[in-house]
């Protein structure tokens, strides 16, 4: 994986740039010691590392604005960083860049239950947004797996989803407004406590733009009343294909589960060995969760079980208590850890039309044999968002490259069947070079032109999302 060569003019002026940044920030908010900057050398895509020129940790929108003004004047690239949990390398620095971390922007600014929104600083973690309102019976719906650690800023940058977005939508469907600092330091307000845009939908454009259009410092988020209860059912099948058909039938029936999760045999076995959740030893299993009062849950689950039974399941396990629910979720929630126990793994995020599930799973199985690398599938089946986990040995020469080639083949397959490269993790550096398989030249050019409008100097996270050769002339300018 290639990153642009650092600008030697910037490297040679490090002391001057650090001094200017220190002059507008509190003591200790500029991290520039080469040992300390290593804390920012990568995010959750740990295969690639590079310490930044320095990292700044501003405590207000005004400080972010001052930082951006300086970087703009000095022509220094800025890499925004939420909590550093990106699996796509969204916060990977270059040696000549300033990491702008929002970790110290973590206050709740306003909570309004009558109008069902909360306004927070963007460094606040996803789970602590819910934490701020749950005692009053509310929650913030998008729930990425990293929700304990990940920041709202990163959720907005990547338009994060989660297991429950089948019912509640992803970040863009729950984001009402932002305060954003532009590349030149100007502060703008977009959206607010009201719905929809009065002009062009700039909020929708910013959400998912991977920190390339501006630095979001505050966000107005929709909060919802917590459901009365939730309960899952686990259904096992002796073929992936049949499980896939069952997913389609449930979706079509008009029942709206909050989650439909899918695990295949390699993943089930790894999980059992690791967590001992008591899953049946079968080809595929679904975990389907519904919400409501006890009676409503019973009604929905009985309808779902009726549909499932038409597909000859090898096992149907309906939860009747909180303990049983926790046990059903235990395996799913420890799936990544279980796979990680076996070996290093790479987690993909391609999304496909639900109808293509059986074909894609079969092709992945065939490719796994060709490459000689094991793969486990665990994913959000309701919306076709797959997470194949490819196992490899990072200490074995050539294994990482083989794994990356395998991953790229899977993602091309996703695009081929009508899907996309990434459903909720973002492009980052990881899938940058595959963008040409999903978009034509003009489709990419119009996106670059959008960035030209927001960031004419191409200083915000410039080496991400698009293939480097496509952005080269702009980054040089």
């Amino acid at each position, binding site marked *: 994986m290639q990153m642009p060569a650092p600008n030697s003019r910037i490297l040679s002026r490090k002391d001057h740039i650090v001094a200017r940044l220190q002059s507008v920030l509190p003591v200790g908010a500029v991290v520039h010691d080469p040992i300390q900057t290593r804390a920012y050398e990568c995010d959750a895509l740990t295969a690639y590392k590079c310490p930044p020129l320095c990292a700044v940790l501003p405590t207000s929108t005004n400080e972010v604005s001052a930082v951006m003004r300086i970087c703009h004047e000095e022509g220094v690239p800025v890499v925004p960083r939420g909590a550093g949990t990106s699996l796509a390398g969204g916060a990977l620095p270059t040696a000549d860049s300033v990491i702008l971390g929002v970790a110290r922007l973590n206050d709740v600014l306003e909570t309004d239950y009558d109008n069902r929104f909360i306004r927070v600083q963007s460094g606040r973690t996803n789970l602590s947004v819910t934490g701020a309102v749950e005692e009053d019976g*509310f929650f913030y719906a998008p729930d990425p797996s990293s929700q304990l650690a990940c920041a709202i800023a990163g959720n907005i940058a990547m338009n994060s989803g989660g297991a429950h977005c089948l019912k509640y939508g992803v970040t863009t469907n729950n984001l009402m407004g932002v305060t954003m600092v532009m590349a030149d330091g100007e502060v703008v307000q977009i959206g607010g406590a009201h719905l929809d845009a009065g*002009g062009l939908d700039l909020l929708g*454009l910013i959400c998912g733009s991977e920190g390339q259009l501006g630095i979001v410092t505050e966000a107005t988020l929709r909060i919802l009343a917590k459901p009365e209860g939730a309960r899952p059912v686990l259904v096992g099948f002796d073929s992936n294909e049949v499980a896939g058909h069952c997913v389609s039938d449930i979706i079509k029936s008009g029942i709206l589960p909050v989650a439909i999760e899918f695990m295949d045999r390699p993943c089930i076995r790894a999980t059992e060995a690791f967590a001992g959740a008591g899953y049946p030893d079968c080809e595929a299993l679904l975990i389907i969760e519904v919400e409501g009062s006890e009676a409503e849950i019973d009604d929905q689950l009985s309808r779902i079980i009726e549909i499932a039974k038409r597909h000859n399941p090898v096992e149907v396990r309906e939860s009747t208590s909180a303990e049983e629910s926790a046990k059903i979720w235990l395996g799913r929630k420890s799936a990544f850890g279980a796979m990680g126990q076996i070996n290093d793994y790479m987690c993909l995020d391609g*999304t496909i039309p639900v109808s293509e599930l059986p074909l894609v799973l079969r092709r992945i199985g065939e490719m796994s044999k060709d490459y000689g690398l094991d793969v486990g599938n665990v994913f959000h089946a309701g919306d076709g968002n797959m997470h194949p986990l490819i196992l490899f040995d990072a200490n074995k020469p050539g294994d990482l490259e083989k794994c990356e080639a395998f991953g790229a083949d899977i993602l091309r397959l996703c695009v081929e069947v009508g899907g996309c490269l990434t459903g909720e993790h973002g492009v980052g550096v990881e899938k940058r070079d595959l*963008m040409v398989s999903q*978009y034509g030249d003009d489709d990419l050019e119009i996106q670059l032109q*959008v960035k030209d409008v927001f960031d004419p100097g191409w200083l915000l996270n410039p080496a991400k999302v698009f293939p480097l050769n496509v952005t080269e002339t702009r980054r040089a300018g």
Partner: protein
Amino acid sequence: MSNTPTSEQDLSDLIQAAEGPIRIVGGGTRDIGAPVEGTPVSTAGLSGVTLYEPGALTLVAQAGTPLEEIDALLAKEGQRLAFEPSDLRGLLGTEGASTIGGVVATNASGPRRIQVGAARDFCLGVRFVDGAGRVLKNGGRVMKNVTGYDLVKLMAGSWGTLGVMTEVSMKVMAIPETETTLVGKGQSAVQAVESLSAALGSPFDVTGAAFSEGKTFVRIEGLEASVAYRAAELANGALAGFQPVSGAASSDIWARIRDVSAFAGRDGSIWRISVKPSDGPRLVAALDDLSPDALYDWGGGLVWLHVADQPSAGAARVRAELAKLGGHATLVRAPADVRATVPVFQPEPAPIAALTRGLRQKFDPHGILNPGLMGA
């Protein structure tokens, strides 16, 4: 050259050969915005559903496909467009048949927007031809997609000023088993919005919350037993004294609210205003000097304001009061001469206006697509 292209390539050729402004015509039912002088180009030749997978909840259609055709196709499978696009022909005095491209281009969303989202939330992908004649695509036909920038949202609600849409992919949803509306009488706007807030802040998945023609309405949809339970819980709690209405009588209520039928056939100007729900009644009270009449949807956050006998439709007053609260106001109905002089869409602060201008310049470098419709 025909002004009704039948393919993307036709449309691209036509735009590249254009010597002046183009006025994009879908079904012609939403005659909103500053009047556009330009050669009409119709999307009627780009019609038909190209893909429908009920089990994946997705539909792909050419932009000029009539909404009625899509509704009928979906209904056969027990599905629908959940964001409840409005039919404004009665309100605006227009004829014709709404198209799916027009619905997306205007982000036309009805009462259910408060719970499920707007047209922009249900649009999964677009194909369009921009002002330079480039044939472009963004998004796709899957539910989750963060591959590159989300130009789908940008195109939704851009009123044809960034490109002419040729195809859209939509997420569809199942029509629920049943619906019930709880109806309350005798409330003031302030009391009504308090009731609506309480209902929307409950765990009972309210899918409609309006105060219109003196009555307060709260809708619940879903499985039979579930709707009965939720309606009873609300009627025994936050909505004490409300009476349930079910079936066709319930759906008629929401069609009337969705289409703003109460103001159809009445002279005067109509504003569509989006505010924080609790600000709805506050705004209307502050505009008392205009003698307005108001309908409230979206829990109070969508105000349809009727203003009679006011020069410039009371624009200066409406926008001055709105500026104190935050939100946006669109003048959806007024005589053409008023719409030509008063900004129909909410004027933007300078830095936002600069971004809008910059984007238009990239998508439509010659300024030929519906020029002026959304303002300069």
